[in-house]
């Protein structure tokens, strides 16, 4: 822990802890990292202090996990951008908003009210503390939006994945090792493939352009076969519009891709892109027979487009931007 080593800080947004565990899971490379860097802040593992972070003029590397949900998250995001030479957006939440981002279009007060009105909550049970203790017991209020780090500041390295796959964490650690020798990665480096998951999927049909989706089934309506393209089975899989680089682990577990690596390069809105590719493949051979009405009825089987297309990216979607714009008017 000598002070002449480069300083590393691991800072949180609204984390679930999975990113921390994924980092611990790499094993030896992490031990190397702990030896070669002076880790000044990582509160799940160390008793490091925020004032240390605030006092420092320069941090060499800062890793940010979780989405930004509070002004404090925001302040920390800006603080690390200001002080750190290399900022890493670690995990889907920091890159795209992640699953907590599903709350992006819900009023914070509604989130709290629901929590305090579930079936087991005793009605009217909420106790209010006496005024003397009130100040010392303040809990921080919610902010209105849930944003990924990447929208607020410009990260140097982005590591998508919920949580990042071990291969990509190892790549990140390699980058941090090279950094020790003075090598800096290109700005905005994305530790994922630019191409789609389909391109490396073992179930990829020979000719993707001839892909036919026979129907749309939910997971209680069809048991996925272990060797066939999910879309060809009528099970919606986000592979065509999701970045590869995750080691297609969910596919290996015989589950369709849910999109946690975020959209492929040059796709701005996953939902729009997916719908357009879906429309062309859906019942391609029966289009005439069904007509527009039939097709629309089929698309109705996508019961939760928001949760399907934007499960990990809602805060960065056009949808959210539009709604928020309208709300501001």
């Amino acid at each position: 822990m000598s002070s002449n080593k480069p300083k590393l800080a691991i800072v949180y947004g609204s984390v679930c802890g999975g990113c921390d565990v994924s980092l611990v899971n790499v094993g030896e490379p992490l031990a190397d990292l702990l030896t070669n860097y002076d880790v000044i802040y990582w509160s799940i593992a160390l008793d490091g202090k925020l004032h240390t972070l605030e006092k420092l003029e320069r941090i060499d590397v800062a890793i940010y996990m979780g989405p930004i949900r509070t002004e404090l998250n925001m302040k920390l995001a800006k603080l690390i951008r200001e002080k750190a030479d290399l900022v890493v957006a670690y995990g889907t939440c920091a890159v795209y908003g992640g699953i907590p981002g599903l709350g992006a279009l819900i009023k914070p007060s509604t989130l709290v009210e629901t929590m305090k009105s579930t079936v087991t909550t005793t009605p009217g049970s909420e106790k209010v503390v006496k005024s003397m203790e009130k100040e010392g017991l303040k809990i921080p209020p919610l902010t209105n939006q849930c944003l990924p780090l990447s929208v607020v500041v410009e990260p140097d390295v982005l590591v998508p994945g919920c949580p990042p796959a071990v291969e990509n964490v190892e790549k990140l650690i390699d980058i941090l090792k090279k950094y020790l020798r003075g090598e800096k990665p290109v700005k905005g480096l994305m530790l994922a493939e630019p191409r789609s998951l389909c391109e490396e999927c073992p179930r990829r049909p020979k000719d993707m352009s001839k892909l036919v989706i026979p129907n749309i089934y939910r997971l209680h309506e069809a048991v996925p076969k272990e060797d066939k393209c999910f879309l060809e089975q009528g099970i919606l899989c986000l592979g065509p519009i999701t970045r590869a680089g995750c080691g297609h682990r969910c596919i290996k577990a015989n589950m369709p891709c849910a999109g946690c690596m975020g959209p492929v390069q040059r796709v701005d809105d996953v939902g729009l892109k997916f719908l357009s590719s879906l429309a062309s493949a859906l019942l391609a051979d029966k289009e005439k027979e069904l007509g527009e009405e039939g097709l629309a009825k089929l698309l109705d089987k996508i019961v939760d487009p928001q949760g399907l297309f934007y499960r990990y990216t809602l805060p960065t979607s056009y949808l959210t931007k539009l709604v928020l714009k309208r709300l501001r008017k």
Partner: protein
Amino acid sequence: MSRRTITIEPVTRIEGEVKVAIFLNERGEVERAYYQVVEFRGYEEFCKNRPVEDLPRITSTVCGVCSWAHHLASAKAVDALYGRKPTETAAKLREFGYQAHIIDSHLLHFVVLSLPDFALSDAPPELRNIAGLLRRNPELVKKFIESRKILRNIEETFGGKAIHPAFVLPGGVSKKLTRDDVDKLSKLCKDLLDITTYIYEYFIDRILKSKNFNELLYNEAYRLRTYYIGLVDNNNYLNFYDGFVRIIDSKGREVTKFEADKYTDYIAEHAEDWSYSKFPYLKSLGWRGFVEEYICRAGPLARLNVADDISTERAREAYKYMVETLGGKPIHNTIAYHWSRLIECIHASEKMIEFLNDDSILREDIVNTSGSPRYEGVGIVEAPRGLLVHHYQADENFIAREVNIITPTAINNAAINAELQKVASTLIKGFEVPEKILNLVETSIRAYDPCNACATHTLSLLSSRGGITVLIYDNEGRLIEKLHSKPPRLR
């Protein structure tokens, strides 16, 4: 001298955002201490209107440290909602994979979050951590690192991803286990049992015998005579995945035993305006505040208190030894939570080897697609931290309309508060409070391995865990002094 408040903000080496506020009277005695969950994530609201079959993958992200527990509690709620009892093969595969997760969470907590308090109690705060352990005890840390790879590998074999798995379907699992998988798992599970045994023995030889650990283990302040809640199987043995919920009183007498879908008859939740986590309590007793004898605890120690026995050999021996050493059940010593965790790690390792010797895990009937929907379902598992409830109601199209989640950290919320009060009152005398004492206060909290992302299933509000900060307020609530540092305030 006026009254003062000591704030530990945030508590470190736990999961999630927590603050401790201790109010001192004019004589510097502890009047009241609060454990506040200041994190909020909102899952119960934004899970509404989602297809219920998607909830196991969505709710697993309530917590990345116990994602499997949420994935499986959710799966069981979804099974019940569709009226599809998983096939025997599916239930076994779920339970098999889940054992690895119990070990994953327990070892992470023991080695990284807690052990520094016992093995490095003499070290300065900046070395009281995993890096310090690496220097002091490289062999143990090496074993721990080895276990991460093994666990990751096992979890990926079942769930695709080790964290936030993709493994369950309504009525079963998505993927069969192959002969190749079994061959690979055989080696991994054997190595894992070696490691959990090693870490258990390290604990018995080095930690349990240490003066510092003993002082805490037998310290009256770190002891609560409470009710306990946990799952047991048909024989009243320890079970993480399935069974009946059993509640015992502080004398060890069975109060009740019920099936998952009856939980609302027994558990209710109380709310306070100073925490984003609620306070579940036993309905039969009613909410009586933070009074030891009306509180119910969950988690590893609770499980070992409610169970009559453990089915596997090595774990059973270890269990007997703990019970004998501590003078019989129920064990009320909070620090024994750590001990219980390590016993459970051995049991889970042994259990996996048992599954490997059971050829029925290779069968192909991994999903049951028939059954009459009930549109409502409750799923209960033992998460690493204790009893976890997922309860969903859906419309006729299987779209979630109501979601209720009760997490073990919430169940322990009242106990943590009650114990905090005891520990703080015992240790804090006067206005000068050294860091070491505050860490001993935190040590009591850490024993519960609280996971506060879980406790509120919510949007994190205060996300800088800025080490120890002590703020002193006067009796008007004005900040008059800060001992360490003050994290930036929100608005």
